[in-house]
């Protein structure tokens, strides 16, 4: 039902929103999305918080899909041990700010995308200001303290948040629509404590999980398909299983129960 006839795609040349270059660039997906949904992507502003293992595929694919504005937030610099999974950064980028390295790649991949690079760690002081102008936030962070802070700010600002975390061959995803679905704090306990030391991970795992986040973002923006609302997705790469576990709001959640 979504497919658009080829003749219609050709007839879009000369429209006000997209150049002929963009129409050719997005040709294969315009056949599914149509101009209206592609415009929704172009008009959207997505914050990717953390430009590492998860943030790399998310940034590349959302840029390739034509999300009009991507805000990258990360304080860190590229290091050698990042490169088994953080595929937006290359060997020649070692020592460079991640938000700059990523912006350079996005610009080369799709110059139609506006990229804002914020070289800051997300904190209580800056989170609200950094996220107030975006439509969707994507959690590509590597620690629970920041993940829970991002969750809290997104609930406060009523911004949709696509959470994920990875370890080894495993990962989880939760799409949070403040007021409608459980928030991250409903699912994990408030005493959740950081992993000690470095988190081991096979690079493909954040690749897969990050792309599932990007897919949910595209669905959220375009309104297509069914979002995984009220469902925690658990991915197990070793047994190649993806399980959806129905989750409920915590009626006494200190973060979202007032909504």
């Amino acid at each position: 039902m979504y497919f658009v006839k080829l003749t219609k795609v050709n007839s879009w040349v000369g429209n006000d929103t997209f150049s002929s270059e963009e129409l050719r660039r997005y040709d294969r997906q315009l056949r599914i999305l149509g101009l209206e949904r592609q415009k929704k992507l172009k008009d959207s502003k997505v914050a990717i918080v953390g430009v590492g293992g998860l943030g790399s595929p998310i940034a590349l694919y959302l840029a390739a899909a034509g999300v009009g504005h991507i805000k990258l937030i990360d304080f860190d610099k590229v290091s050698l041990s990042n490169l088994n999974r953080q595929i937006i950064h290359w060997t020649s980028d070692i020592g460079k700010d991640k938000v700059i390295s990523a912006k350079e790649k996005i610009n080369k991949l799709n110059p139609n995308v506006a990229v804002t690079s914020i070289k800051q760690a997300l904190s209580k002081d800056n989170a609200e200001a950094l996220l107030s102008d975006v439509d969707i936030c994507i959690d590509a962070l590597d620690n629970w303290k920041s993940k829970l802070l991002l969750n809290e700010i997104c609930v406060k600002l009523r911004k949709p948040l696509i959470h994920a975390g990875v370890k080894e061959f495993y990962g989880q995803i939760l799409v949070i629509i403040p007021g409608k679905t459980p928030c991250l704090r409903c699912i994990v306990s408030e005493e959740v404590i950081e992993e000690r030391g470095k988190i081991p991970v096979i690079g493909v795992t954040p690749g897969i999980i990050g792309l599932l986040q990007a897919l949910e973002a595209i669905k959220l923006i375009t309104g297509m398909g069914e979002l995984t609302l009220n469902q925690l997705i658990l991915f197990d790469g070793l047994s190649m299983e993806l399980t959806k576990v129905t989750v409920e709001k915590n009626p006494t959640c200190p973060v979202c129960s007032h909504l």
Partner: protein
Amino acid sequence: MKVTVKFYAILRELTGKKEIIVELDNDAKVIDVLNAAKKEIGEKAYEKIIEYFNRKKGPRLVILLNGRNIVHLNELETKVKDGDRLDIFPPAGGGKK
């Protein structure tokens, strides 16, 4: 009554199971479900689950009872009923470093 217990990620390696169904008397609690699961998952796996759930250093295991974290209910003393489901997994916190 019967309660389904599902294990994910490293818990599958630990228990050797993806899913078990535990038979219990009425008025059982989550801790009774885990106790009854020992027969299938072994004493060592049981002890690790309790340890990882209670630990103060490192991420705690999440035990969901019908989609609610038991930490927000009555912890291991939360009552269960026939047909309930426990999903047990370690939350993955990585993403960047």
